């Protein structure tokens, strides 16, 4: 009697368990589709005619392929220029980031360095308290950096968080190789260049990638510090101008009269979104390979 009851319970449970598995597979599938669908729609619409976008509510394969939107983008100087600015800011910014971050991280990874604790606390305190947007703006302005590329390259040169992780990584490297390099007459700089950096290539690559993605995606600093130099704007600021501000103006023409611009066609907007996203998708496989490593290194305290 008791045995059958338990048996029934088990069958019931395994049925519930299988029902849950089916539901779970379907639910995760739906979430994944919901994640990717907006991208697919934007790509499809960027290749569609304006008429199709207006007529059909949702599609991921356009009826007639049209390259008009891309022709329009690449015929306009503004977007090619913005793309070039983004590439320049990303490359130059990442080089500056890594030079500043790695050198400081290496020096602070030496436990015997006199004054190390003071320097470390200087860095850590800045992670909790900042002067805020306006005082930072005043500093950038009084250095004469406003409306120059330096204003987006220098103020974020070191991420304290990244620096601490790289410092911890250097700290955990075996000392032996560096010591022998120094016995051979290398200075600390030589040891960093010839021993430590070659040993840390995966970490260097990971953080370069993180910094680069950050530069490519950022719009706020450029908008803040280079608002009067549209010829220096990166893609993200131009995108905001083209899509967000023009739509807001279309609804309320009185609000942004100063930088008024005719709202572009829907397909052109889609194409600009695609062009701004593609570089990220190109490095995404590498990001995926490295980010878990980055998260894991971050998890190690020391």
């Amino acid at each position, binding site marked *: 009697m008791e045995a059958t009851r338990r048996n029934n319970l088990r069958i019931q449970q395994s049925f519930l368990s299988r029902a849950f598995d089916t539901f779970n597979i379907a639910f995760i599938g739906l979430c994944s589709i919901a994640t990717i669908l907006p991208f697919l729609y934007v790509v499809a619409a960027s290749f569609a005619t304006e008429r199709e976008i207006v007529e059909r509510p949702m599609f991921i394969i356009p009826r007639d392929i049209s390259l008009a939107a891309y022709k329009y983008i690449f015929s306009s100087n503004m977007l090619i220029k913005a793309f070039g600015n983004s590439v320049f800011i990303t490359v130059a910014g990442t080089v500056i980031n890594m030079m500043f971050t790695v050198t400081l991280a290496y020096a602070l990874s030496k436990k015997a360095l006199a004054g190390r604790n003071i320097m470390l606390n200087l860095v850590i305190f800045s992670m909790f308290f900042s002067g805020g947007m306006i005082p930072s703006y005043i500093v950038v302005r009084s250095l004469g950096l406003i409306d120059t590329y330096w204003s987006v390259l220098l103020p974020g040169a070191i991420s304290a968080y990244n620096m601490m992780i790289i410092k911890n990584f250097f700290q955990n490297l075996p000392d032996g190789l560096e010591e022998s390099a120094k016995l051979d007459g290398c200075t600390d700089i030589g040891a960093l260049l010839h021993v430590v950096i070659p040993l840390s290539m995966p970490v260097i690559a990971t953080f370069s990638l993180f910094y680069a993605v950050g530069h490519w*995606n950022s719009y*706020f600093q450029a908008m803040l510090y280079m608002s009067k130099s549209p010829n220096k704007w990166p893609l993200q600021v131009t995108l905001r101008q083209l899509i967000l501000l023009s739509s807001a103006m279309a609804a309320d023409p009185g609000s942004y009269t100063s930088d008024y611009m005719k709202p572009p066609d829907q397909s052109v907007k889609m194409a600009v*979104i695609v062009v701004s996203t593609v570089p990220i998708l190109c490095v995404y496989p590498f990001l995926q390979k490295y980010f878990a490593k980055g998260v894991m290194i971050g998890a190690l305290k020391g």
Partner: protein
Amino acid sequence: MTATNTGVRRNKTLSHIVRDKWLYILALPGLIYFLIFKYLPMGGVIIAFKDYVPFLGVMGSKWAGLKWFNYFFNNPIFGTLFKNTMTLSLMNILFFFPAPIILALLLNELRSQKYKKAAQTLLYIPHFVSIVIVCSITYVMFNSNGVVYKMTQAITGNTVNFLMSPAAFRPMIIGQTIWKETGWGTIIFLAALASVDVEQYEAAMCDGAGRLRQLWHITLPAIRSTIVLLLVLRMGSVLDTGYEHLILMANAMNRSVSQTFDVFVYQQGIQSGQYSYATAIGLFKAVISVTLILSSNWAAHKMGEPGLY
């Protein structure tokens, strides 16, 4: 005796400094960076207590005492900003915070590792996409030519202008955050779950525990400390709504709900040139934030969790 000892020690320190001169040279650019771009602005907050005039500079401007703070606290905008900031933060904690936990638990229950990997690959993508792109996609899907606009029209017969409607502002911000960050947010929980010993599950199965009981007694305790830590930290940053995201979605029509402390500092300081006033508001927020973070970290320690530092 003592004198010679200190002398020897000082000599030793000096010789260490000489020995490590290249390390100091390596550290120099980074330290200068922190002094100029982090500590100079911290000193710059004194303009919150001054009538800052750009022409006179930070030092040359006249002292104004607590004028800007009094002005701010007695201004009806303070109540609006406080309400908007808190509402958005609490909605974020209520609706976004649990999302990665639930998704991580569901991903963890998937039996096919290949399916799990494929789903993760798709779910992580939005994290790496710029917030400008996320908002742009929202705009092209919700404007009067967009998919969502047309579908609402077809289903309800009414047109809704989501992008301009104050009622739609908060749900849209939270929705965008959920779409962008839920997948990425699962990583920290999945990492904690990966460290659970499989034997525990086997032992539980032998004892006749179903999947729900395994979830309750093994899986949830494994991520409990991570959840507590993240929640405590989130509470600490309750006043930070971030400006990068909100400024993109804010417009003249939804101003009544889109203005938070962060957005207001940008509008007053940068757009209206009220440097001292905006700095005072920023300083007020920063002081509260630091206090909250320190006390929430203290609370984490009290609960037996490692905390942030």
